[in-house]
């Protein structure tokens, strides 16, 4: 078992095996750092692994590698992820504080007195620092335990233990304060100088701070424990109620009817059905309406086919050909005849010999028809002539 000869060697080793140590630290909670992974991380140089084992940095536990506790705790402490709360170290500090004070009072040499004084100050500062860190760690642990511990029973136990730790820290704070104020008044009066004064003042402030935080943590722990208790109780009750319901005796053995009668929450009511009146036009005239109807009939599957009412058979009468003769005036022939004549259009139409007698009205219509239809071939004069009550323009061939 070799040891590091000086700090240089140690730091060099830490720097060299950065990758491996990082991986092992990350996996410290699950035991799975196998030989192959380790070898890879030291670039396949087996001597490096042997070196680490030799110097007590890692050890080989058969299946996998583990980091030695010393280094593990060191990393956890410094990186503030420690889950250990060390109250014992504070107690030791208080003891060594007492000792240092005693030596100061016994010592005669000024120089060595001064040394003890510095030592006292260092210990005081240390106590305050450690307490402070402990309080922070405690808070973190409490939160983690409550939020992450899956097993309720274990959660409760852990929280209780943490509560005890809390009491431990509080006790230490109290003892330190008593020591400063009551136990060693002689020393503090005698040795009080600016430096010690400052230190004592700072320490007192830090300890008070820590103490307040502890009170808050006390409340927090009680809160969490209560919540756990509530959940447990609820679970038990739920199981009981379900059991009774399954046995069909819930109504008789509990006051559920009473409770349900007294409350009338909205979610228990039926959803109100608001009927919509469809627009028949929509159904009949739009594509979406048709699609909706098709989908509906496919779903209902009544297979209703709109049967057309068959009409009665045709009689022989319908089969006879009936002829109807429509008389109409051939405007083209009229126009040609007019062009050949010398009269104006109106007179021509009025005097023309039709096969059938034409009413005056019809003649007027014919006049307008020919005038508008063959306008390019006609010349409409500005002169107007009169025929009874009708004023008409004189139209001649163009």
């Amino acid at each position: 078992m070799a040891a590091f000869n000086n700090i240089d060697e140690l730091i060099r080793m830490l720097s060299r095996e950065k990758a491996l140590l990082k991986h092992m630290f990350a996996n410290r909670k699950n035991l799975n750092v196998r030989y192959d992974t380790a070898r890879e991380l030291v670039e396949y140089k087996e001597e490096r692994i042997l070196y680490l084992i030799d110097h007590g940095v890692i050890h080989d536990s058969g299946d996998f590698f583990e980091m030695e506790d010393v280094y593990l705790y060191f990393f956890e402490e410094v990186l503030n992820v420690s889950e250990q709360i060390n109250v014992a170290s504070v107690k030791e500090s208080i003891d060594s504080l007492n000792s240092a004070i005693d030596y100061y009072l016994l010592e005669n040499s000024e120089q060595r007195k001064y040394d003890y004084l510095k030592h006292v100050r260092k210990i005081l500062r240390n106590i305050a620092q450690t307490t402070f860190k402990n309080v922070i760690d405690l808070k973190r642990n409490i939160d983690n335990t409550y939020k992450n511990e899956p097993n309720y029973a274990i959660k409760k136990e852990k929280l209780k233990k943490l509560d005890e730790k809390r009491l431990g820290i509080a006790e230490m704070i109290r003892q330190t304060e008593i020591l400063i104020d009551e136990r060693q008044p002689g020393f503090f009066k005698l040795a009080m100088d600016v430096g010690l004064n400052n230190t004592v003042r700072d320490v007192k402030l830090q300890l008070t701070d820590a103490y307040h935080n502890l009170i808050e943590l006390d409340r927090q722990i009680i809160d969490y424990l209560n919540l756990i208790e509530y959940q447990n109780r609820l679970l038990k009750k739920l199981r009981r109620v379900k059991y009774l319901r399954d046995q069909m005796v819930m109504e008789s053995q509990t006051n559920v009817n009473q409770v349900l009668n007294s409350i009338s929450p909205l979610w228990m009511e039926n959803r109100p059905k608001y009927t919509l009146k469809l627009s028949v036009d929509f159904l009949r005239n739009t594509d979406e309406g048709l699609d909706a109807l098709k989908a509906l009939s496919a779903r209902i599957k009544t297979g209703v086919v709109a049967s057309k009412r068959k009409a009665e058979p045709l009689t022989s009468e319908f089969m006879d050909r009936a002829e109807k003769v429509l008389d109409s005036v051939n405007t083209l022939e009229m126009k040609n005849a007019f062009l050949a004549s010398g009269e104006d259009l109106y007179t021509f139409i009025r005097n023309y010999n039709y096969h059938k007698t034409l009413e005056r009205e019809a003649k007027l219509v014919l006049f307008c028809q020919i005038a508008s239809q063959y306008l390019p071939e006609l010349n409409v004069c500005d002169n107007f002539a009169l025929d009874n009550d009708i004023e008409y323009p004189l139209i001649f061939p163009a």
Partner: protein
Amino acid sequence: MGNGYFYFTRAESKVELADKLERFSRWIDRLDFLKTFNSAFSPGFSFSRFNIMEQMASDIELKEKASKLYKEKLSLEEVVEKLVDDLEKLGFIELENDIDGIWKVTSAFHYIEELVDSLIISEEVENEISE
């Protein structure tokens, strides 16, 4: 109440006791299922549909309870889907992360827990029930 949730009620109820019992009874089943899935299922708890499916794969009791949750015959995945829907409709859970499909239980969940808690079980029966 100061518990972080509200709910509506109507003065003269339009629902019969029998209906209320029926609905409440169904929620007892759902609560039981959820607590079996994870006893920490309460306000602040996060989960995903996948978690429930995973748990069902290794827990037969959970599968059993799931199949009894709804009257219609649904596949396990459909049951979980429907349950999550029902929980969301009443405001008991909220979508926390769309991409991973993670839901969070709201304080409103206390409502149904309180409702069950408020029931008083008659004395003799308390001791009879096996745990």
